[in-house]
């Protein structure tokens, strides 16, 4: 059973541990024991799952020369999404998705609960931050031509992520059930209804009937809490898998200076 070995991070020479003097005994203090224990625990899991191979493949893949700050926009979108998921869990602990109680529970959460308004604010403004980062990321991908072969499929997954994210904001806007969210959503649903052919069906589906009320709220809640976040998480997984598999693009103006043997092939 091969013991797991972590590659040493590239530290400056001064910080690297000094090699032991020959002849001194191996120190076995508590630190070493904990380290041993942790390594064998990881080994145990790895023997049964081979998961470290995947982690290694993800973390120690190379990113091309010239990778710059524009390439952090995707991961920060992901980070904003995780922040939304976390703050959302805390909001869900207090929120009550019934037409009669929704507003009251939100008011209680905002005014009474410890840090309630802060967490609600993080969730509210986090959505703006996520949308901004999403568009910036998309702009980066567009102007770098990163949607071209072989990454077309990842672009398509990205467009679906965009639509799902906008669906999140639209459905989440109704939940506090104050005047603003209520009327904005009514107009939004009515606008949907003006669409050709499928429009009326779509607005009927969103409302959950002809009238705007409890069913609508339940429906928006289920979409906002279950359906779309699940789909988003799964598709982000697929998106990242493809990113790791295909590698991120190099900046387009970078030319590969080909090693000799490549040049010789050329005529």
């Amino acid at each position, binding site marked *: 059973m091969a013991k797991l070995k972590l590659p040493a991070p590239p530290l400056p020479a001064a910080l690297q541990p000094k090699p032991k003097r020959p002849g001194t005994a191996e120190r076995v203090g508590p630190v070493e024991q904990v380290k041993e224990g942790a390594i064998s625990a990881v080994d145990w899991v790895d023997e049964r799952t081979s998961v470290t191979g995947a982690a290694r493949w993800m973390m120690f893949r*190379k990113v091309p020369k010239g990778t710059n700050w524009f390439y952090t926009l995707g*991961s*920060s979108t992901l980070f904003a999404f995780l922040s939304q998921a976390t703050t959302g869990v805390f909001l869900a602990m207090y929120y009550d998705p019934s037409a009669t109680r929704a507003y009251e529970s939100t008011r209680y959460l905002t005014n009474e609960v410890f840090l309630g308004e802060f967490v609600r604010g993080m969730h509210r403004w986090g959505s703006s931050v996520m949308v901004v980062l999403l568009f910036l990321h998309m702009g980066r991908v*567009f102007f770098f*031509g990163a949607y071209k072969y072989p990454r077309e499929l990842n672009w398509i997954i990205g467009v679906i992520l965009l639509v799902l994210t906008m669906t999140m*904001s639209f459905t989440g806007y109704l939940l506090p059930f104050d*005047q603003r969210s209520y009327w904005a959503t009514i107009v939004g649903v009515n606008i949907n209804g003006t669409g050709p052919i499928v429009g009326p069906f779509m607005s009927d589906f969103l409302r959950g009937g002809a009238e705007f009320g409890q069913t609508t709220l339940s429906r928006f809640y289920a979409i906002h809490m279950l359906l779309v976040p699940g789909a988003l998480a799964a598709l982000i997984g697929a998106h990242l898998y493809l990113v790791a598999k295909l590698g991120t693009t190099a900046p387009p103006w*970078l030319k590969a200076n080909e090693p000799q043997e490549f040049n010789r092939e050329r005529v």
Partner: protein
Amino acid sequence: MNQREKEQYLREYSILKSQGKPFFPYAVAKDGAMAVVTMISIIVMAIVFGAELGPKADPTTTTYVPRPEWYFFFLFELLRVIKPAILTPLATIGVPTICLVLLVLLPFYDRNAERRPERRPVATTAGILTIVAIGYLTYLGAAAGSPNEIDMKVQPQYEAGKLVVAQSGCLACHKIGENGGQIGPNLTDIADKLPKAAIRRTLDNPTAPMPSFADLDEGKKTAMVDFLATLTGEPQVVDGE
């Protein structure tokens, strides 16, 4: 991209990649720094702007202006730019759907192997124009402000109706005098076009996207209709001036 260009790309890419650095820790460090910036932005905005909660939703009083989240402004503004009623479905569903289809299919109609933005003039120009258009529409949506007031002199007995109209969000879609948007017909001279009873019928039973005001408090509705029925497009003579 033809087969030769694809192979050429993969070959150049594998060279650039082999000359690169490992994702961990180099890219992770940048990503982490950016994550911290993201977190700080969210926290600062949460503290500075907080999370306001308006009055409770009330289907009967409709005293609120429907206003979407700011990043939907550009979709909402599209409605004002594309005015004729016949084209409304085009603005609401048509243009966004077409844009989405164009977006999904982008890798399939842009088959140019070139990736540098300055050597893809069509794609780059189209991208910049799209950004400018979305930015401009968002700006228009933000500048339209919260349309809650009507700057118009009226007889004192119609002041109540004017207030109800102003607070009911009609101005989000209708223009009255100097104020309001252009999604719906201009109401400045509505009294010339529709009799009082018809105005009332419109409120009870409107055509989408106008929301129904059938549940509005009876007194308020009467005041509203009385006020609207005085709008002839002429400046009103106010007693005592």
